[in-house]
């Protein structure tokens, strides 16, 4: 894992000190709320419905056990015993008092964490594949590149006041777990025909009120030019992106307005001026960063584990969890363990202090001290010996963390919605809970296979509804909650936006309607055909009919 150098440590230390002073000046009345608000937002502190909300960055979703224990400690000491993991691999506290926030940030700094650039019109936390460094699918570990981008973008003076917020995601696998096509910039490491590794550069994707699947503006960017090329994109955006209308200020609007070809030309022109300059890191610096992400010292093990096989045979619940929640590891004898934060009827992405500590203990004991946070609001232990899976599962089960539903219909993304958020029009969590309860039977869920349900409580689409196989958007109709269903979206390598199929459904109707969709799929599917593939084969017509039958 990356460790702070003296520059990182100084930046975070200075920022905490500065913010402590700003909070004191606000509390004494020296600063007005209008003056203070932009300052607190620069430190990830929002004011939500019930209280302040503090958003803490988890760079590219990687945590050590010490860091996760600190998050748990903060939840217990300063909050209400839980925290919420978000779709951007961040963590949010829903109840911190302003007077405590400097101490919270101080605590975070002791484990090399902070809330810098988790709000505001700047480059936000860089996100990545939660399987980075663990999956055999990847070309190389994408995290050194994320770290390089993090360092470049941290307090970047030219890009601290962009027209709007800016989100970058990086993946290195064909199977996209980082949703790179719905980010302001998506980077996909891949091999050229000559075997050289570089980036496909995707610019101008995004969700929100103008959802767009990002176009590729460069098929192949040699790795060494990453920073100069990013700088060129950001300069073009900073110069030409709209500042007169917040809803038209994201880079996707600029790319769309200019057209991909013209936008690319502008970037290439800008790039020609800075390509090969000091911005492009020397190989030795790239290697220096890469060392932090060296693979752990794996044991040499056989592919199969006899003890795992035995436990699978003797315990059906464990067998199911292994089937559903673990993934193939690049190292023989190891597995990737997904920890579901979606218990049946629970709040997607919430974890208690005790659960975070349990996950931290497991990571320390069984996963080389690493935990990952996923954009689907789950956790992940990236490197677990197959021999240890039963022990890990047993502990997870004790902490209600062993729900075997990764990728299934109850593994729902939901934004906080009107239960917490000032921007929301409707609640989203209760809909997620009711859908999850409706499909509580794990035999049924597993039989249905991959179905991605994503729910947003307003048009800002924090719940990624546009790219759900089944997307649900809450809309307010004269003070009543209604839910608009979209079908056939995907955030993966086959990214596409869902189709809006018709009028909104009431809160009372929507869960039944989702069940009818799923029942229809079950009746029509071919062998092994996913919900999404059946939808693509059959088209919206019959699904729409199922959705509104009886309604």
């Amino acid at each position, binding site marked *: 894992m990356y460790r702070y150098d003296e520059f990182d440590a100084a930046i975070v230390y200075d920022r905490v000190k500065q913010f402590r002073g700003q909070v004191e000046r606000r509390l004494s009345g020296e600063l007005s*709320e209008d003056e203070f608000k932009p300052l607190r937002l620069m430190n990830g502190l929002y*004011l939500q419905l019930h209280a*302040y909300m503090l958003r803490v960055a988890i760079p590219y979703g990687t945590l050590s056990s010490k860091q996760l224990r600190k998050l748990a400690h903060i939840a217990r000491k300063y909050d209400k015993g839980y925290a919420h993991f978000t779709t951007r691999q961040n963590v949010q506290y829903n109840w911190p008092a302003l007077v405590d926030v400097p101490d919270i940030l101080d605590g975070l700094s002791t484990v090399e964490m902070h809330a810098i650039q988790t709000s505001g019109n700047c480059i936000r936390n860089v996100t990545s594949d939660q399987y980075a460094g663990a999956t055999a699918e990847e070309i190389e570990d994408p995290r050194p590149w994320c770290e390089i981008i993090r360092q470049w973008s941290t307090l970047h003076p030219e890009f601290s006041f962009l027209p709007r917020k800016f989100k970058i995601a990086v993946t290195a696998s064909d199977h996209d777990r980082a949703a790179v096509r719905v980010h302001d910039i998506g980077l996909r490491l891949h091999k050229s025909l000559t075997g050289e590794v570089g980036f496909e550069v995707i610019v101008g994707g995004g969700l929100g009120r103008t959802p767009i699947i990002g176009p590729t503006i460069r098929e192949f960017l040699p790795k060494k030019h990453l920073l100069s090329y990013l700088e060129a994109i950001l300069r073009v955006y900073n110069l030409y992106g709209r500042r007169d209308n917040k809803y038209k200020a994201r880079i996707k609007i600029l790319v769309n307005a200019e057209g991909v070809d013209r936008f690319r030309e502008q970037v290439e022109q800008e790039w020609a001026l800075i390509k090969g300059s000091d911005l492009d890191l020397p190989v030795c610096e790239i290697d220096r960063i890469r060392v932090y992400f060296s693979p752990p010292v794996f044991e040499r093990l056989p592919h199969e584990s006899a003890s795992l096989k035995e436990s699978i045979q003797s315990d059906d619940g464990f067998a199911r969890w292994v089937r559903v929640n673990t993934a193939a590891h690049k190292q023989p004898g190891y597995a990737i363990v997904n920890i579901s934060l979606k218990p049946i009827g629970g*709040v997607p992405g919430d974890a208690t202090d005790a659960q975070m500590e349990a996950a931290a203990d497991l990571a320390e004991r069984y996963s080389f001290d690493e935990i990952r946070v996923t954009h689907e609001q789950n956790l992940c232990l990236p490197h677990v010996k197959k021999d240890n899976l039963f022990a890990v599962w047993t502990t997870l089960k004790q902490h209600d963390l062993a729900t075997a539903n990764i990728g299934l219909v109850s593994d729902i993304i939901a934004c906080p919605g*009107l*239960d917490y958020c000032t921007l929301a029009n409707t609640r989203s969590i*209760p809909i997620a809970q009711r859908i999850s309860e409706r499909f509580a039977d794990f035999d049924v869920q597993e039989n249905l296979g991959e179905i991605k349900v994503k729910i947003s409580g307003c048009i800002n689409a924090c719940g990624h509804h546009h790219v759900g196989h089944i997307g649900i958007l809450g809309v307010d109709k004269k*003070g009543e909650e209604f839910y608009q269903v979209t079908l056939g979206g995907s955030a993966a390598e086959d990214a596409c936006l869902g189709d809006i199929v018709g009028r909104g459904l009431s809160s009372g109707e929507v869960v039944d309607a989702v069940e009818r969709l799923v029942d229809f799929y079950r009746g029509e599917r071919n062998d092994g055909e996913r919900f999404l593939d059946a939808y693509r084969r059959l088209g919206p017509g019959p699904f729409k009919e199922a959705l509104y039958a009886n309604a």
Partner: protein
Amino acid sequence: MKAVTANRLADGRVVYLAPDGAWTERLVNAAIFENIEAENALASLGASAIEFADAYLIEVHTDGYPSGREALRETIRNSGPTIRTDLGKQAENG
């Protein structure tokens, strides 16, 4: 009818302007204004700006419960998350 609401500066808790000019955590104890009086009450808050943040008006019934288009939002603010009834004011009001 309207009430004035805000979040308390130090801890962010939801508060309402009471008839005595102080802030109360309970909407039922809030001052209820006619529309124009409410605007005046909101406008005159400047002096005590270290006590609260983000003050605005909400619509209420005469019995002090939220009404109008934002009734659900304000009911949730006044009570707590509907999915965690152990949290927020709903957990404290017994």
